[in-house]
Each structure stands twice: as C-alpha cells, then as structure tokens.
C-alpha cells in the first residue's frame, strides 16, 4: 500500500509516499509530482521514519508515583489531569496554566490545543518553539 503524505522534518514540506506492509512502514518514495521536491528527498525524508517502530515508543499513559512512572489507563490519567487543572484554576486563576504547543503537530491539533487553553482554561499562555 502507498500513502501520499508530507515529510515530517523541515519546513520545506516535501511530498512523499509511505510504503506500508502489514501496518509497518517498509520504505519511503519521493512524490514525483510535488512542486517543491519534484521526485527527490533528502536524508531525513528517506530515513527519518525509523523512529516510529522503535521499541522505546510510549504505548500507555504513565503517572509518576514516588518518583517512578507507573502505567495507567487513559481514564485515570485524564481524570487525574482534569482534577488537578480544575483545582489549580480555582486556587490560582487561569493564568497559572501554560501550554507549549508543537511545531511538529498538525494544524488541526494545534487548533484544538489553543482552543483548549483559551476556551477551557481561559488563558492566552500558549506558545511553541518557533524561535529555535
């Protein structure tokens, strides 16, 4: 299976096809009709996908208890965060919360993230690492 998408590294936004077999990426092919990359890719475009199947990927939410990370469920992790955020907002106001958004995440994810900070918490303390 071939999936047409965009390289996740620099801001050039080269087009590429991801080659998939049995839910595994087996390779990457340049998109020959892309106006910028025109059938070529660089080192990170071709080989940068390898981290996705690394054994160190996080596969479950973790809560730190006594200095050790303990695997937990989504329900428990989100419940814990929701409770703590509600408490902190009540005690110290919405501006006691800050969110670092991500220049690696999609437009849609960044939109939801800033909407969360602004509409749910009520703060403009949201920024991302555009400066590096």
């Amino acid at each position, binding site marked *: *299976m071939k999936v*047409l998408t*965009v390289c996740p590294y620099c*801001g*050039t*936004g080269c087009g590429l096809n*991801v080659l*998939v077999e049995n*839910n*595994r990426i087996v390779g990457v092919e340049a998109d020959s009709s892309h*106006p*910028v990359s025109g059938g070529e890719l660089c*080192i*990170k475009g071709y*080989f*940068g996908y*390898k*981290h*996705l199947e690394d*054994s*160190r990927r*996080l*596969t479950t*939410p*973790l*809560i*730190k208890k006594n200095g050790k*990370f303990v*695997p937990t469920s989504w329900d428990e992790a*989100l419940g814990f*965060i929701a409770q703590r*955020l509600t408490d*902190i907002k009540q005690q110290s106001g919405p*501006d*006691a*919360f*800050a*969110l*670092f*958004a*991500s*220049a*690696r*995440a*999609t437009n849609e*994810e*960044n*939109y939801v993230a*800033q909407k*969360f*900070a602004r*509409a*749910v918490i009520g*703060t*403009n*303390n949201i920024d*991302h*690492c555009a*400066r*590096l």
Partner: protein
Amino acid sequence: MTLGGGAMTNTIPEISQYSDVVFIIGSNTGECHPLIAKHVIQAQSRGAKLIVADPRMTDMANKADIWLRLPVGHNITLLNGLMHVIIKEKLYKAEFIQEHADGFDDLTRAVEDYTPAYVEDLTGISQQDLIAAARLYAGAGAAVILYCMGVTQFTYGTGTVASVSNLAVITGNLGRPGTGVCPLRGQNNVQGACDMGGLPNVFPGYLSVTDEKHRARFEKAWNTQLPPKPGLRIPEVADAVHQGKVKALYVFGENPVMSDPDNNHFIHALQELELLVVQDIFLTETARLAHVVLPAAGWAEKEGSFSNTERRVQRVRKAIEPPGNAKTDWWIFCALAQKMGAKGFEYQNTQEIWDELRQVVPEKWGGMTYARLDQVRGLNWPCPNEEHAGTPILYVGGKFTTPTGKANLKAVLFHPTGVAEDKIKEFKNPIVGKIAELPDREYAFTLTTGRRGYHYHTGTMTRKSLPLNQVGPEQMVEVNPQDAAVLEIEDGDYVKLTTRRGNIAVKVWVTDRVPEKTVFTTFHFWEANVNELTVKDTDPLSVIPEYKVAAVKIEKISLAEAKALYLEKAQKYRVELEQEVVAEMQKGWRV
C-alpha cells in the same frame, strides 16, 4: 513587521524559475533545507548569481559567486553596509519607495555611517566584495533573500529581519515572481502552529487577542468568554514559574529541556511546578520530569494537514496504526476538555476541526476544503473561497498589509559593544543591537550553534534511526585549523567547552568551516547539549534567545574525562528512567 506579515512572501519553485540573484544570509541551506538548496543550484545552472553571507563555510557559501564571511553577529553591520552602497550609488528604486514605503529618510540617515571602509573595519569583509554584492543584488531583475535562524537568533534578531526587509523594499524586490523575503522554517509545521494561534498574542489567522472585534468573533464561534490579555512566551514561562505565577504546564510534541537556552535554569523551573503534563511519542528529557506522561500518535499515524514555509497547506495522511494505546494529540485534548465538562470538543475527525477553522477564519483558509487539498499538492493561504486558487506571492503590486498599506522602513543600528545614546536619539523608535556576551580573556572563543543535516533538533526521532545515526553518531565541535594548532588539539580529540552557564565534553572536528576564534556545535545530543552553554538573553520584541553567540573556553581533555562528563549528563537527564519505563511497558502491560 516592516511588511505586515510573518511568512515567506514567495514560493520555493520561483527560485529556480525566475530569480536572477539569490542572497542567502544566516542559513545553511544545503544541510538544513536540501530541497530548497536544489532550487538554488538549478537557478545557478540557469545563470543566476548567488551571494552568501555566513561566518561558516557552508556548502552554499562554497558555491557562491560572492561569499561575505562576516563574523558571528554582524548581520546588521553588513546589511546596513549594503544599503549604504545602494543608496550612495542610487541603485534603489525611487518610484517604488515613493509609492509603497514610509521612512526612507530615516533609513538613509541610519545607514549613512556604514561606509564600506567602516564595514571592513568591523567585519573584515573587503570593500570590493561589499560593493560588488550591493551592485549585484540591486541590479538584478528579480532577487530573492533566503534567511534562517542565523538572522533571528540574536537579541537584536527583529532588527536584522527588519534590515532584510528594508533591503528588499528599497530595491523593489517584492511582489513579483522570483523576488521576496523568505524565512526558511526549520520545522515541518512552525508556519502552521503560528497560523493556528499557537502564540500568546494572536488567535488563529494572526487575529490579535487584544482586539475586541476579533475576540468577539471567536467568543461567538466557541460560545464562551475569552481572555483579553496576551499570554506568556516560552522564555518568560520559566521566570513566571520561579515567581509562583505559573503552577501547571502542559507540553506536547516539544522537548524544551533540550532546546531552551541555559537549560539548567529551565529544568529548575520545571521541578517547581505543581503539575507538568508531557504528551509525546517518547519519554523525552522533558517527559522524564513530568507528573503525567501521555503517549501520542506519531507522524504517519494520523490524519491532518501541515503548512510549509511557503504557506502551502498540504494534507498528511495516516498510513499505520499507532502503537499500543497511543492516541492522536487532538483526541487527547478533546477527551480532556470533555472530562473538564467543556462543550465544543465533540469532533469525530480532523476534517471537522479543519472545517471549524475555515468557518471562523474564512479570509485565510475558507476555500481550502479537504476535498480540494486532496486534489492538489497543497494551496498557499490566503485562499478565501472555493473558487480562489491560493496566493503564492504576497504583496503583489507593492500592496502591504501594514495599517497604512505601505512598508515601514525601520532604522536599525548596531555595534557589538552598543550604540552611543546620542546616535539612538537621532531616530524615531530605531531598533538597536549589541552582542550580549563578547569573548574576553577567560572565555576567549565565540560559540555559535545550529544543526547538522543528518539529525533533527533534540535528536528524539533521528537518533533512533540506524542510517541517520551511523552518519552522525556523535556530537562534534568545529574548530578552525589555526586555532587547533595553537591549542594543540587534533581532529578527534575531546575538548571541554565551558561558558559561564555550564560545560560539555565534545569531540573536535578540525575544519575550515568555521573562521578563526569561532567554534560551532549543535543541540542534537543530550550527552553534549550546547544549550547548557547558550545565553538566555532574548530579543525584546520577538523574545528569541541569542542562541548564536556566547563566549566560550576550550580545554583539551582525555577520553576518560569525556566519559566521566557523559555519565554526569546521564544523571542530569535521568536516562535510566527511559530504560525502566521501556522495561515496564514491554511486560505487556495493557489497559
């Protein structure tokens, strides 16, 4: 700021098609944006000329018709020098300036002192080269400027960016194919994160949070009250934590412990937080300090869109399932919002999110439906309706998006040790620059930082790829052969780099890529992370830290000493935690 927007004014393919002169300043395009460099090479083979201004012998500098090897931090000196020559020799476009720009008189006075002789004195760039570069750039039918972090990462970065725009405006190099001012974005979706309002002062579409009209638009769309006060920027957050103002921090898809300057300061701040949530695909150095870690889906594991440096919005698609219980970032935020009782987060897929954005900010993205984006290789915003073809070139016909519709030429002054007060007073709101930390007797070298082609940022992703790691297994510091001879160090030796903020052990690469008295290294490797050394002084307007200059001391050390320092860093960044967590996860623990 000068022109009205913060994005690349033109598109990349125009470089190879239309540009007669390409001026690259502060960008290692060959290594960091290879497919943009390709367009520059194609332009060259068509006969276009290349000017490169860089302290380092980058691969593009090597190919330049004129290479201006300025010392680190002297961008403004150089740019003012170029404009001095252009104005003196009347190479500017008087008509264009008269119709489309304000402040030319101020600018003329500001660059008056920057004669070729003065510039040579300060930077060592020969008068001949400076004059030749000025004539070449100003004389081109279409000239484009490409710049990157070598321009912005100074305490006066805003000034340099303004200078770059000044240069383009006075020569009329805007609003036509093959011209423009092009900041090359370093990350796949920096443009998108900015566009989507991932900034403390603006909503999606760069609509100011302080403007009641804009706020009302989003309050109506989101059905809630919104805060009118601009928020904190990243470098300000650490101080706010120390002051007890910020108590909870939520980080997703970033690794600020590695990427923020003078990171010891930042780590202490994180440790004081009451709640730190990190959402990422690996247990990053930042995640290890968190109270809660949430597993995210990676690239190729989710649907959505990215906006590249040309404002080209392109669809990214899901190819594989995320591992274990990892979830997409948008799903996590929606689930959390719902847990907190919020409405308006009932999205079923990314298309619904995108369509909401299109409705709220139609002037920029209204016409970009998923269906259309699926048909083409991206559309450049603004694209207000479905009949609109997108906007590859901004400011066509010199129509700028400033309040007056004209470009604001800004007076920018610079001297490494500071500009005299009298001089500053001569101008209305000039931007003034000086270097935060100059070398002295103890810290005798200038340290500058950046990236390498084979790794990416904090190495979280690229260091887990065998081919990339085999090409770049280890941190290296570039040292000029002259300096190496004086210090009695050889290629492959280890040195300790020390600044007033910290020290790291690094292997030496003796190379002409750096000028004398200057060393270069990166932030890809936790065991030798240059951001333990960098200065946290920031630009007052953009709050970009001065990553590019610091004073540093170099000492030769043995392999055993280097190893000891690595072990020290391993403790500092708690690398054993990742090992523990991986073991825990591999027990097959599933919810």
